[in-house]
């Protein structure tokens, strides 16, 4: 069985600074990968390379057997439909109501009829526990609610993989749980997920693999047990020690 995502020797430079260095990795269908590591290590950049929000300077990324780096604009658009992304800062469209946020891509990209899109949106909002907020504007929602809408919005395209970039970092502590719960449910349903996170508990309980990233490289990869209980790399040990202290 081919991997869902395969990354081979990707590099990324911003000007002269090398942010990603010769990264390799594979994500299989149904797997949950958690990427952890210190700030500035390149986690977001890596994740954004997967759906080409950033173009790698060199290297190959393939998704479901298609090599991404060789695609043109409209092919990239088609591919992005299948990769949902959830951002640290939610990025809900402020000019639209909650339900319009969820419906937009199915209508515009999949050319779904409004009625069908509406039904789908209501179903997904129900799934994240926000059916009653459908007609409100994002600004009137709490952070946790906004992030759950953002997840529903990504799910509306029926993606094969979901990319999360620190989905709970911008939330007040009391709202972290509700978002993690939605993500855990998704994982239980068999969704393939790549999650950049500082929530070590979530990584421990949900991840199939944990990738520790520092200085633009994956310093260590392994099962949660290997990474959290028996870290081999010195930098992993340092990082975990600092996290546990705090």
């Amino acid at each position, binding site marked *: 069985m081919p991997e869902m995502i395969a990354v081979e020797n990707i590099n990324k430079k911003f000007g002269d600074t090398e942010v990603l260095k010769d990264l390799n990795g594979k994500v299989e269908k149904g797997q949950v990968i958690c990427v952890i590591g210190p700030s500035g290590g390149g986690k977001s950049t890596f994740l954004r390379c997967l*759906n080409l*929000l950033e173009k790698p300077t060199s290297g190959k990324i393939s998704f479901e057997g298609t090599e991404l780096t060789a695609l043109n*604009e*409209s092919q990239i*658009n*088609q*591919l*992005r*439909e299948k*990769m*949902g*992304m959830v*951002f640290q*800062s939610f*990025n*809900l*469209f*402020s*000019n639209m109501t909650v339900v319009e946020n969820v419906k*937009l*891509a199915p209508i*515009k*990209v999949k050319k779904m009829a409004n009625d069908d899109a509406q039904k789908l949106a209501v179903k997904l909002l129900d799934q994240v526990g926000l059916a009653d907020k459908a007609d409100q*504007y*994002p*600004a009137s929602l709490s952070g946790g609610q906004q992030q759950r809408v*953002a997840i529903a*919005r*990504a799910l509306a*395209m029926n993606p094969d993989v979901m990319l999360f970039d620190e989905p709970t970092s911008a939330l007040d502590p009391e709202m972290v749980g509700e978002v993690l719960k939605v993500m855990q449910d998704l994982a239980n349903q068999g969704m393939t997920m790549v999650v950049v996170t500082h929530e070590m508990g979530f990584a421990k309980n949900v991840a199939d693999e944990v990738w520790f990233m520092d200085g633009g490289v994956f310093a260590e990869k392994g099962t949660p047990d290997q990474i959290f209980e028996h870290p081999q790399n010195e930098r992993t040990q340092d990082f975990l020690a600092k996290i546990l202290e705090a």
Partner: protein
Amino acid sequence: MKKLMSWLMLVVTVSVALLGVFAQPTYAATAVTDDSLARVKEKGTLVMGTSPDYPPYEFLVNRGGKERVVGMDVDIAKKIAKDLGVKLVIKQMDFDSLLVALETNKVDMVISGMSPTAARKKSIDFSKVYYKGGQSIIINKADKGIYKNKNSFQNKAVGAQTGSIQYNLGKNQIKGSTVKGLAKISDLILALKSHKVEGVIMEEPSAQAYVDNDPDLAMINGKFSLSSGENNTAIGFQKGSTSLVNAVNKSVDEINQKNLTKSYLKHAGTFMKTNTKNTSMWHYAGYFVKGVEYTLLITVVSVFFGILLGILFALMRLSKMKLIHGLGVAYIEFVRGTPLMIQVMFVYFGIGLFINIPALIAGIIAVSLNSAAYVAEIIRGGINSVAKGQTEAARSLGLSQQQTFVSVVFPQALKNIWPALGNEFVSLIKESSIVSIIGVTDLIYQLKAVQTATYKGVIPIIVAMIIYFVLTFSLSKVLNHYERKMKHDA
């Protein structure tokens, strides 16, 4: 990106096509062979250019709410048209613009109390002289004892119509005087009454008309030394229109032989009497209504095209393609770096050399193109003000760049820039008044027409001021309403 560009090209094409519908091709500017007479006969119309603020030569009267140009020159033009067997069409514009209008084929002839001076003869041809009048100076009646003739104005300020003979007479023959040039006689009279100038130099019949209609004014003989060109009045033509000039000269000969100008002047006098009978502003409501119609028409159409083109130029300026970016920057900076007035004249007279654009359309094009540059900068600011995360979220869902722009970025940009756009529209109502210089009958133009017709300076200004304020104030209110409606956050 390609899709976006083709979409933009469509917008441009449609805009240009819509504007183009009103334009008709014109004849080549200067024909090598003289077909001036044949051309007039072929199209069946004789277009006369005139600046109707010079009674009794030409001025506006209000008949049943409709205004009309009348005067000695109009009667002369009618006779000429009749003799040629064609229809007379009258085009109004500022005196300043008349020569250019001839050169650019906007009009076939100019009859506007114009003297055939040596300088003018260099650029246009003239018919034989149809009227000889002296040059007078109008003064305030109270000053009658002080001013006797031109020599009394040494070291004083006098006024004259810009581009006129009288202006040069003042400059050259009154020692140490300052000559103030204004485009409209009505403004000159105002300047006289408020002692901005002490006298206004004018042709004798005109001066007589003003004095007859205003008890506060008096006139004196200027005693200027006049070369034969300077107290004469003749008809102007484009250089090289010998056949047309010859044909018209036959009519002029007849006018001179039968001394027809005498009866024409009398005819003009009858209009001036009815004109002065009713100087209440209500009587001229029709003028103002028409002015408001044109001002609103120009503003609304210009706002529409200004936004379309403004979006286009903003996107060009934001483009990553060097050439397109450069064109966008060049356009915006150039338009913002030149006065609207010059742009209006450029479109009407400059472009008019190749395509015959009616004044109203020329005005709308110029104002639209001008507004587009300012709107483009507002929109660019608005687009930049939309958080990058919004675009990334849309793109990550599979929306194309174009879909992202239309559904996400632009609506948010619009909300952010709505107040600035609103300001732009409000100021457009005011700034569009510049089109009056090419004879578009907007509110400012009508204001001057009412001033000329009523011999009243200040009251029409107050009326126009109130109308402008009501227009801009109500627009602001409407825009505020929509601004509040668009606020979803906070």
